[in-house]
């Protein structure tokens, strides 16, 4: 049997905040623990996913959670929708209680949702969520990220017109779409900006090259929004000798290092973070749902954001560590306290 639609408020609202006022609440029949939980990842082969897997693993082992989990399995199916759906169905067949997943495609889960509801299995998509309201999902508000970035740029540029470079992510992805829309809405509301769009694929090298091209052809920009591979965007700026301008981007450690170092020269930066820690929150949400708590259908995790005014070495970035990991990882209200440095760079000192 699937979840019941119930009235709020939900369980632990400081962690499981409903997306907006219209968000429904869901309630599953309580099950006896400990539970069998699976994480079905799609693509593996970038730092974010690896950090996410590490976070999930460590979180499942952490005190307070460990006792509630009988079995925790992680599989990565690659960018293959059929394989991912197959894996989810397989775990349902195997009798798992909850399945946490990053969807390869935002559509196509109808069948597994049907099966999950029949079998009383809780499916929790996060990060790349589904375009459906039939399952409980966990994410940060991508539209808000774009909007917040646009507003930041307008504020820092201090004018209502100008030329803005937008470095987009992977074409066709809903995250890219939402962030883009947020940015455009913010800019439109604030004035008359010319926006030059290029594709950076959320990849350092690609966004660096695309930015370099745009700079060589377009000359000057007044502000930059980059969805990912943000450090590459900045590097292209520096290589081209372009003066530093306000910039909004992702939460890579490298990007935050650049902001911290060059803010005084004009690199006024904002760094939001799609956090790999979402995996931990999703596991926590799955357990809460299995325990019979009332949960929002769409859980909004607060966007961890920092800007040049509040960057602090050793706290929200690490100047002595590798550029690659994603700084925001912990969510104290949710009792998720796994620091990125602990899982991604714990042996950094030993490596020397």
């Amino acid at each position, binding site marked *: 049997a699937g979840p019941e639609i119930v009235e709020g408020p939900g369980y632990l609202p400081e962690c499981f905040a409903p997306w907006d006022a219209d968000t429904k609440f869901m309630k599953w029949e309580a099950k006896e623990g400990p539970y069998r939980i699976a994480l079905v990842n799609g693509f593996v082969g970038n730092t974010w996913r690896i950090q996410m897997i590490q976070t999930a693993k460590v979180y499942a082992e952490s005190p307070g959670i460990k006792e509630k989990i009988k079995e925790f399995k992680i599989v990565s199916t690659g960018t293959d929708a059929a394989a991912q759906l197959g894996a989810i169905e397989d775990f349902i067949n195997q009798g798992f209680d909850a399945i946490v997943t990053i969807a390869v495609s935002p559509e196509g889960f109808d069948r597994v949702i049907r099966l999950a509801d029949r079998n009383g299995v809780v499916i929790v998509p996060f990060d790349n969520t589904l375009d459906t309201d039939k399952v409980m999902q966990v994410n940060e508000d991508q539209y808000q990220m774009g909007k917040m970035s646009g507003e930041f740029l307008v504020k820092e540029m201090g004018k209502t017109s100008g030329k803005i470079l937008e470095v987009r992510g992977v074409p066709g992805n809903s995250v890219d779409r939402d962030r883009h829309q947020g940015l455009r809405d913010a800019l439109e509301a604030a004035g008359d900006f010319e926006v030059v769009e290029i594709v950076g694929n959320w990849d350092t090298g690609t966004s*660096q090259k695309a930015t370099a091209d745009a700079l060589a052809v377009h000359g000057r920009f007044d502000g930059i929004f980059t969805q990912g591979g943000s450090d590459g965007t900045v*590097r292209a700026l520096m290589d081209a000798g372009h003066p530093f301008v306000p910039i909004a981007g992702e939460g890579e450690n490298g990007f935050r290092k650049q902001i911290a170092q060059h803010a005084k020269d004009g690199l006024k930066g904002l760094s939001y973070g799609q956090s790999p820690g979402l995996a931990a929150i999703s596991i926590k949400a799955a357990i809460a749902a299995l325990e019979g708590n009332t949960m929002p259908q769409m859980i909004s995790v607060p966007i961890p954001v920092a800007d040049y005014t509040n960057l602090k070495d050793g706290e929200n970035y690490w100047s002595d560590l590798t550029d690659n990991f994603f700084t925001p990882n912990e969510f104290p209200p949710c009792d998720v306290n796994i620091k990125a440095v602990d899982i991604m760079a714990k042996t950094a000192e030993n490596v020397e």
Partner: protein
Amino acid sequence: MATGSLPKPASGWSLSPEDKPILIAGAFILVILATGTAYTLATQGTASFLSPVYLLQQLQVGAFLGIVAAGAMLVILLGHIDLSIPWTLTAGAMLGSAIGGPYAIPVGLAVGMVVGLMNGLGVAYLRVPSMIFTLGVNAVMRGFMVMLTGGYAPQSTATPLMSYLATGNVLGIPMPLIVWAVLSVLVVLLLQRTAIGRYIYAIGNRERAAYLSGINTRMVIILAFVVSGACSALAGVLLAGYSSKAYQGMGDPYLLPAIAAVVIGGTNILGGRGRYLGTVVGTILIVLLTSVLSVMQMPEAGRQIIYGLVIILMLLVYGRQRGVIA
């Protein structure tokens, strides 16, 4: 024909079939630049695509692809293909920068050579089709890098030397361009002036006959794969210098463009025929096309269609392949 060891008699107006693709690709580069310039003139009133800054920058960025394509070409000339390029490149960059210090570059290159050696052994000794063996090796290297990244996150910052090689310049000429040029000279010498070069063409044409000519075909195959691995790793090392760090997946955007560059340059995808100059021209064509489309803000759909049509068109004008009985 393949290597043209002896001078050909002047055959009037007709181009040798080897030169034709190079000239046509060269002409197409001009078309791309003209189109881009028309666009910038219309939208901004500048001819930025013709500025030396832009062109040098394209050559700098093109060098990474060019280096990968050089290695890919050797393997393609043999009638094989190297699909392990993406993660060989990434592994070279990641392991090189993990070691850091003076050994970063040698270690990075060594990683590429070891991967190339694996490929070569699989193809030459196990006789597994290269298409599939290198695919497997690519998967293994990816798995290896994923394993290393989790929990061990080694140092990934490029060393100063790597950065210099990728972004420095000498008398205004970008260093990567110089590295590419040096590599190109070596490859041309290898292909045209050494026995190994002849053997590569011979094996690409007919391995059985090459073997019966007393050529150590296995060694040649292994060597070509090792060079290809080293080229990928070199590109990885430079790319890490360019972005000042190595990261997962940095090689993914290089495989198909490298193969396309080689083919557009007139090298037969089945091996045995092709000139290195063609690969250089093909590389520049691909890099400029990518860049111009990016600047023109062409949507992904249009970009894919244009890439496809360009490749088909180029090959169509190169002249159709020989008939079956020739």
